[in-house]
């Protein structure tokens, strides 16, 4: 099963299990089924609760907020994460604030899902990882799916169990990726850490204790997986990857536990470097382990995402960037 099928199945389950669930978005009706086909089949099965909307991102996020205020459980699809900024006011000043601002008198169980990220040549306004601009907004949970374990269960948790607004980021490269189950089915061991928006730990099966910890989320977890294997088989450097699902609010407890052993941290994200997720993670880890942490941040370069393949590859972080950073930190790289 790939990630797209997992998400599609989860949405189908949500609509099936709860008649308060609605699905809204642009171009989501069959036979089109949404720009990335996550909605395929939903409008045929649930014609009254799948609503195709005008091209109005602020309008439909606010619409979902209003529906949630009246007891429904709306899921709003934003076709490209790049378009989310059009709805930023609705997310930050309305959906995220309403519960607290009203003295806990109302709840907004809204889910906004959106594909982010590059590596498909869509160019500067259809390839970005903009989630960092919405991290840290009080009252808004930002989570990112990965291919690990069961991405559908993350979506179901957000739709059916979370009573507060959630922005769910789905990197577009994940859709076609096969789901990586927990356990030791490959050279990797994947463990779940915690419940709900779980974090995961990936390590090379049977390897010695790791020397470096990579912290990441989304599709970068796949690049980190490749880096892990390259480091182990080509350099005999053993690393582990902590993959986060919930980005904001921040809970780094699973990572801090790993750093007690490795004291070396690499943060990896596909958004641009400055003031990003990695900066917050690094700052918190440094605060928690004063004087005992070596650190690298891997992220995109500070410019828009180019369309042409060679340019995009040069601008976005790649597997070899992770490998290089790990070699440096472990003392086995050129710049050690």
């Amino acid at each position, binding site marked *: 099963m790939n990630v797209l099928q997992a998400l599609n199945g989860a949405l189908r389950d949500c609509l099936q299990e709860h008649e308060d669930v609605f699905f809204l978005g642009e171009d989501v009706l069959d036979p089109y089924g949404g720009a990335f086909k996550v909605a395929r089949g939903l409008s045929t099965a649930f014609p009254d609760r799948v*609503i195709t*909307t*005008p091209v*109005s991102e*602020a*309008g*439909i*996020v*606010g*619409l*979902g*907020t*209003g*529906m*949630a*205020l*009246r*007891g*429904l459980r*709306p899921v709003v699809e934003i076709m490209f994460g790049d378009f989310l900024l059009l709805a930023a*006011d*609705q997310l930050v*000043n*309305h959906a*995220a604030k*309403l*519960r*607290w*601002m*009203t*003295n*806990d*008198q*109302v709840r907004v169980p809204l889910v906004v899902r959106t594909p982010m990220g590059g590596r498909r040549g869509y160019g500067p306004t259809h390839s970005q990882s903009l989630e960092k601009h919405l991290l840290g907004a*009080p*009252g*808004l*949970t930002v989570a990112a799916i990965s291919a690990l374990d069961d991405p559908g269960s993350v979506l179901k948790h957000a739709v059916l169990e979370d009573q*507060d607004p959630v922005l769910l980021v789905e990197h577009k490269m994940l859709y076609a990726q096969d789901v990586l189950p927990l356990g030791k089915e490959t050279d990797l061991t994947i463990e779940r850490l915690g419940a709900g928006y779980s974090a995961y730990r990936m390590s090379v099966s049977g390897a010695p204790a790791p020397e470096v910890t990579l912290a990441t989320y989304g599709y970068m977890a796949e690049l980190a997986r490749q880096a892990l294997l390259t480091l182990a088989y080509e350099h005999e450097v053993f690393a582990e990857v902590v993959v986060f699902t*919930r980005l904001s*609010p*921040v*809970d780094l407890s699973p990572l801090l536990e790993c750093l007690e052993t490795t004291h070396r941290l690499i943060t990896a994200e596909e958004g641009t470097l400055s003031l990003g997720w990695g900066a917050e993670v690094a700052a918190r880890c440094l605060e928690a382990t004063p004087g005992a942490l070596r650190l690298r941040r891997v992220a995109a370069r500070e410019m828009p995402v180019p369309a042409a393949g060679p340019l995009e590859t040069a601008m976005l972080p790649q597997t070899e960037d992770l490998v290089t950073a790990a070699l440096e930190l472990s003392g086995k790289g050129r710049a050690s």
Partner: protein
Amino acid sequence: MPTLDHFYRVMLRIRLFEEQVLAWFPKGVFYGTTHTYIGQEADAVGVLEHLAPGDVVVSNHRCHGHFLAYGGSMHALAAELMGRQTGVCGGRGGSQHIQWRDFYANGILGGTMPLASGMALAERGSGQAVIAFIGDGSLGEGAVYESLNMCALWSLPLLVVLENNRYAQSTPIARHLAGSISGRFEAFGIPVVHEDTTDVLRIYEVAGPLLEQVRRSGGPRALVIDTYRFAPHSKGDDTRDPAEIAHYRENDPIGLAASRLPADIVTSIGDQVGAEVAAAFERAKGDPPADPTRLAVGAGNAL
């Protein structure tokens, strides 16, 4: 239909509440700022006297009048302005962020319209109406048009009450609005009634059928009311020509209603409402301040 003395009383409660707010602001008892409804009382009262249980009201930064006409507590509103635990939202929201029962106000101009539309979508077919108050200033915001489009497209039960007080903060309508107000609704196929009046009876009369059409899911309707605010946008920020203000004061909705009532009734209502307002503010002033130990309650998943 409610009697004229009832209309007068509800409007006067708003007027005297707001006058007390402006009178007490220099005393430093309130936090932040305020936007008073003085001059526009007939709009809220004329429309909201039609409310049925479960109807939703969505208001804006100038929400005190809407809230009081909705049936909100004068004391709780005063306490909210003063940052007291007993405030409508425990002091968290302040003057322009009020939520109680099915009443929602937010200070982001026009940003309330998508929410109102979503609530209307949720209430479609229930016989309930959503009533959204916006002003001429909010017509500069794109979210308004996205909302009108969706409401018309899906026949959602929304009544938009557009209070044209002829100013967006300090900017007169001639400097911020092209075309016509009614034309904006007509462009989406939304039937619109346009009234240039401060007569609460007239507003009540035209709002009734519009709300009935909305409740029967005939889709959205718009009521445009040309009005005027007699007080500043906020507190001390009035740059309008005093002669212009005096001109519109001749059509004071309170004075108009009072002129149709016996003098002794006007006096007696005035005494009662005056005492009610004084008591509400004095009581709020004596209430305990908002409690910092509750700061994180309801802050979502914050760790």
